[in-house]
């Protein structure tokens, strides 16, 4: 692992940086409870569609303050969502400020927040129609959107390795049967398959059930193509002479499959894993966009974006509502770069 990172750093800077951005995103998602300045469903009725708050070190008199502060803002025109800065009212930002009690990481309760103001509000990325802090919701939404990728990929790769590996190694009737099954799954255009699978289940499920459902649907769509490719690779690798040599050394079948055949698919599969994670993030967004995904008030990047769709007023007056889109983009780009880099680095011939 360490060696791979070192090589990545040396050979492909871009993918090395991407790796750390991804780690950063996942850590922020994990620690959303600790970082976010507000609870994710807290609605500030007086601040709908509030633009991102600017954080200042200098006030209007050009005086420097060591402690950063924000100006209080006030809604002046509710119809047009026009806000005005109250110049007299400086609200310094404090660490560990008091707020509403909430549970942290499901472990303990606390009423302290990492940062915040005593009066006034900090909305780093602005607020949505209901006056909820978008920064907070992106942090919580990342939990859904980012974990769906990882869990979905794990499930479909598990299935892919299992089915593809068995199919390729044992061949014959088993292979024939499994591959026909795979073809059935591959026959449907994945988007319709996704919709019809979703349609099988009732609409009024709990958030957690929907989450599970989405993960399962997405991995059911993803595994088939993978199984096919892994089968092909196993098929050709098992004919390699080093596999014959491994058998001549008296290694067990189990060991040969898992130590010699599967690792030789890694230069492809690890890349494929990183490159397919974006598909899951987008899949979740697509379902949420159609209102079939994670339901309000719980945020996911997809359902946060879905509010903007077809709503011109939002798009023209409150472009900050699109920040989740930026994060989806960032994640996908990073995974793509990482995948590219790993492909180079995982092949010993390139060292």
């Amino acid at each position, binding site marked *: 692992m360490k060696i791979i990172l070192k090589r990545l750093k040396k050979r492909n800077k871009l993918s090395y940086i991407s790796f750390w951005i991804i780690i950063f995103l996942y850590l922020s998602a994990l620690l959303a409870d600790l970082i976010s300045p507000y609870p994710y469903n807290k609605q500030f009725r007086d601040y709908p569609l509030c633009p991102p708050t600017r954080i200042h070190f200098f006030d209007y008199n050009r005086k420097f303050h060591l402690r950063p502060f924000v100006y209080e803002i006030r809604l002046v025109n509710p119809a047009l969502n026009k806000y005005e800065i109250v110049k007299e009212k400086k609200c310094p930002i404090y660490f560990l400020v008091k707020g509403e009690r909430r549970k942290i990481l499901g472990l303990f309760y606390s009423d302290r927040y990492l940062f915040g103001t005593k009066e006034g509000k900090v909305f780093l990325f602005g607020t949505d129609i209901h006056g909820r802090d978008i920064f907070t919701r992106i942090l919580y939404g990342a939990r859904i959107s980012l974990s769906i990728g990882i869990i979905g990929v794990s499930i479909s790769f598990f299935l892919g390795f299992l089915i593809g590996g068995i199919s390729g190694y044992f061949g014959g009737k088993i292979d024939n049967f499994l591959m026909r099954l795979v073809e059935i799954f591959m026959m449907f255009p994945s988007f319709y398959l996704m919709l019809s699978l979703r349609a099988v289940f009732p609409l009024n499920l709990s958030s957690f059930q929907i989450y599970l459902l989405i993960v399962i649907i997405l991995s059911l769509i993803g595994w088939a193509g993978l199984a096919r490719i892994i089968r092909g690779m196993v098929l050709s690798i098992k004919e390699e002479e080093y596999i014959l*040599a491994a058998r001549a050394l*008296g290694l067990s079948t189990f060991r040969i499959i898992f130590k010699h055949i599967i690792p030789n698919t890694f230069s492809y599969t690890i890349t494929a894993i990183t490159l397919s994670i974006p598909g899951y993030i987008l899949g979740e967004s697509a379902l949420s966009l159609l209102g079939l995904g994670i339901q309000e008030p719980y945020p996911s990047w997809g359902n946060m974006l879905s509010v903007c769709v077809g709503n011109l007023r939002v798009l023209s007056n409150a472009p900050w509502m699109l920040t989740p889109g930026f994060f989806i983009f960032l994640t996908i780009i990073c995974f793509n770069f990482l995948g590219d880099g790993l492909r180079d680095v995982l092949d010993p011939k390139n060292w």
Partner: protein
Amino acid sequence: MKKILELKNIYVGNEEIKILKNINFEVKKGEVLSIVGESGCGKSMTLRTIIKLLPKNIKILKGKILFNELDITEIQDMERIRGKEIGIIFQEPSSYLNPLFTIGNQIEEAIKNEKSKKLCKEKVFKILQEVGLPENVYYLYPHQLSGGMQQRAMIAMAIVNNPFLLLADEPTTALDVTTALGIINLLKNLVATHNLSVIFVTHDISLARFISDTIIVMYAGFIIEKGTSEEIYNQPLHPYTKKLINCLPEKYRKRERILTIEGEVPSLKNLPSGCPFSNRCDFKIDICEKYLPGEIKFENRIVRCFKYGNIVES
């Protein structure tokens, strides 16, 4: 001396193709036996029969393989024997090493009955030294080694468990002459130090003479001649062996044309009913095309030719 391995009446193939036919030979402790013959005559198949790693569609049809008095054709868990009691090395070392793992890693994997990691590693360093590789090879990947070093690494893997028998399938064919000689000398040393028995497959009969005690000549899946290496080289009996030796470059002076054996090896799928060499043989008589000659024994020699007696294969 004690017999390590004995093949009795071995037939290998399937319904369509008979690759090995009535193979009989034995290997004693510390003996080096060479198998020579043209490409496709079944040399590699003989080795793969002994460790029971035949292609999927090919089976042992008949016969016994006694290895230390145990019939290999009947046992199920060959894993117990492969690598531990019989080691094997191949022609093209680069493709027989897993490209993903370091040499050290792969030799360690070959080691049986050694639980402690540290002792395992020590053993690897010892064996590396024994096959003449520097210690740092432990950390290198196969593609970072030259062909000769790769072959030495393969040999290290094959002998690390101190097997009784080493099967070497043209281990020097892919190497240049000096590297090849290095490997041959290494094998000779190992035979002496480990009291190893070796079956050495090659198509180079003078190399076979140099390294081995006994030579077997194969043709189209038959053993057509067997004898000590000096006998085979100096007084070949079978017309095929004679021609083979006549083709050796060292038998010729400068600017002379080297003779070749005319004609084609018959395809294994439709062998003639008579002697498989009859279409290329200068001493052909009527019976050669009708019947298959059986094995004629002179003391320790065996030859399969009607020139030396009228024994017909049943």
